[in-house]
């Protein structure tokens, strides 16, 4: 996540954050979209960014931190460039989703929530991505891979740098 693109070209992260905060300053209920966008800019939510958001939006830091830790989407530590989310929902569960997760763990060498040392992948589980018709399945970034068998999992990762 080197640069944050906008219409006027590349902005530095700090400029992008400042622009974002300007946009949401008087917006009712803007904290969650701000956190989502800030996470897009930084890849995760560093403490200083949370402090800046709290200050600029005039929301107590404790409240910002509370919202951050409540939702599964927000991360306080750096994450991999590619996010792997293996589905362990009901349909995937009865069709062997756990074995897909094992294969993913084995292939990446990290456990649930873990990030590979080279920051290439973060491995997560998800309770359902709504592609139950193709279970068992997983998402890598925004792409859904369905009808998986454990053997195929490692090969899928290879195409993500």
């Amino acid at each position, binding site marked *: 996540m080197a640069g944050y693109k906008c219409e006027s070209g590349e902005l530095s992260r700090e400029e992008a954050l400042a622009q974002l905060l300007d946009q949401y300053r008087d917006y009712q209920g803007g904290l969650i979209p701000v*956190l989502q966008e800030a996470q897009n800019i930084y890849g995760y939510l560093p403490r200083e960014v949370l402090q800046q958001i709290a200050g600029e939006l005039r929301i107590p830091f404790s409240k910002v931190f509370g919202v951050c830790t409540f939702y599964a*989407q927000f991360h306080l530590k750096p994450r991999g460039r590619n996010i792997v989310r293996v589905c362990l929902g009901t349909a995937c*569960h*009865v*069709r062997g989703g756990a074995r897909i997760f094992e294969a993913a763990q084995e292939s990446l060498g990290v456990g649930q929530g873990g990030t590979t040392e080279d920051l290439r992948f973060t491995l997560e589980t998800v*309770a*359902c991505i709504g592609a*139950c*018709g193709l279970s068992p399945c997983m998402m890598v970034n925004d792409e859904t891979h369905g*009808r998986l068998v454990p053997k195929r999992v490692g090969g899928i990762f290879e195409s993500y740098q």
Partner: protein
Amino acid sequence: MKSLDQVRVTYQEEYRHKTAKNRIVVGLGTCGIAAGGEKVMTAIKEQAAARGLDVAVDLTSCIGMCYREPMVEVAVAGAPSVIYGDIYPDKVEMLLESIETKTPVYEWAAMQIPNGAVPYEGIAVMDQSPYYQKQVRSVTSRLGRTNPESIVDYMATGGYEGIEKALKMDRMAVIDEVKKSGLRGRGGAGFPTGTKWNFVYGAPGDKKYAVCNADEGDPGAFMDRSVLEGDPHSVLEGMMIGGYAIGADEGYIYCRAEYPLAIKRLNLAIAQAEEHGLLGEDILGSGFNFTIKIKAGAGAFVCGEETALLNSIEGLRGMPRVRPPFPAIKGLFGKPTTLNNVETYANVPFIIRKGADWYAAMGTEKSKGSKVFCLTGKVNNTGLMEVPMGITLRDIIFSIGGGIQDGKAFKAVQSGGPSGGCIPAEHLDTPIDYESLGALGAIMGSGGLVVMDENTCMVDVAKFFLNFTQLESCGKCTPCREGTKRMLEILQKICDGKGEMADIDTLELLCRVIKGSSLCALGQTAPNPIATTLRYFRDEYEAHIKDHRCPAGVCSALLVYSVQADKCNGCGACRRACPVGAITGEKKAVHVIDTAVCIKCGACFQKCKFDAILRA
């Protein structure tokens, strides 16, 4: 008031022109894309250009047959259109040839739509095909048939006629029409939509909101995703009609972040509606103002609960509020708010356009209309379907779903996700409506149906759901926060073979207490999977506890692996597969598993080609 007639006539002409030509339509819902639909589309475009073939390439969403994705429709002008299943790039060449030769590729065809031409022999006509015969297609009528990214397609097929008609009606008349239709909330609880709107209409205040709950979190459910991806305009139109009826000028769609394609298509649809003056100020010159904003969820199942969802839109932690006051009186930002599910809103334009009587003619006495279900799990035909209320589970699983995979025996179907229950074989003939499913201890829920076969352990399934709910419990109220965790611990103990009979009594007690004392529906319904499995599959719990045996062979702590001497030919595959060296035996002699060393990983069971490993 301004009329849309002129625009509509133009668009109908455009749509007619488009569909009258040779064309190929690729199903690009999330399921189609996951199965490789985009690669197929690229291959079609490239190869058609290389051949110099005059064919238009279009996209549509999921038609419902997820088990045959990627699906491609090939329409030759003047002939029936044929819908093919399992189409990968290597099959594209043959499909293009089929346009040139005007002969379908029979063996790949899933079904055909005659479009007024004489149907081909040997290919099932869609309405009469086994998958669609017992379905009705109203909310899902555009899914897999029109391009969801085109307002032309939507308006050419009756779209925005509902809002145009509603704006000419009195607001109360719109509410009465919805009441008369008998439409009930499709998110799970089944509250009558018209009554809810009436409450908000009557609530004092000049600022009101219409909110759409698209936080479809139930594992095993993708109805809302399919509707949002396949017909986003219908949800917008339903919200506009609802907003007009209750007197709201602002709408929010709260959609899970796990559905990026749905959010993309909704944004596109909103922009198109704004361009056409259907959203914004003084819509069609009626004086009605309405805008719609999308809020992406941030990954919390509890936000599907209406008051938690409102908190989340307000930028707070998604914790439920104490009711009363109900959202109809004090909802979003403290203003009167109606909250309806995606499918509920998508039904509304049809009801207004075709009339309440048309809608109420479908279904049972107390549950009118149709319901979209997602059939998944150990069933042959997984996918999306729309059926009239009152159809039996047997029809859904065996007629539409094509029965159980690999010829196994049906054991149970789980309806309503983590809040629902497991329904056993003896109740397969129950007609589906809100009341009858409730009487079985399950719920209609949003429409997820997960089928389980004889190889599914019901204690393990209950444990699976409790693990889910205890993780997703927001922690605000004690019965849910602590209770679900205690129940999970007991289930884990039973699955590990360490359970006692008294644990069943404790579970039953906890079920009652948590159901009766939790703050919101997440906690109140969390015990349902345990209560129903205890009610219908008590023997499985007892087998785990008394005999230390898992009848379905799932709970690994209770399994014992052994070699059946009469089937073993001594190939040694199991010995080599065993990670701990628990298997010994000479070449071509019967092998033996040392149960003291065995870690019950099941590697030998999967490896053996002769079914010689016994798992009991």
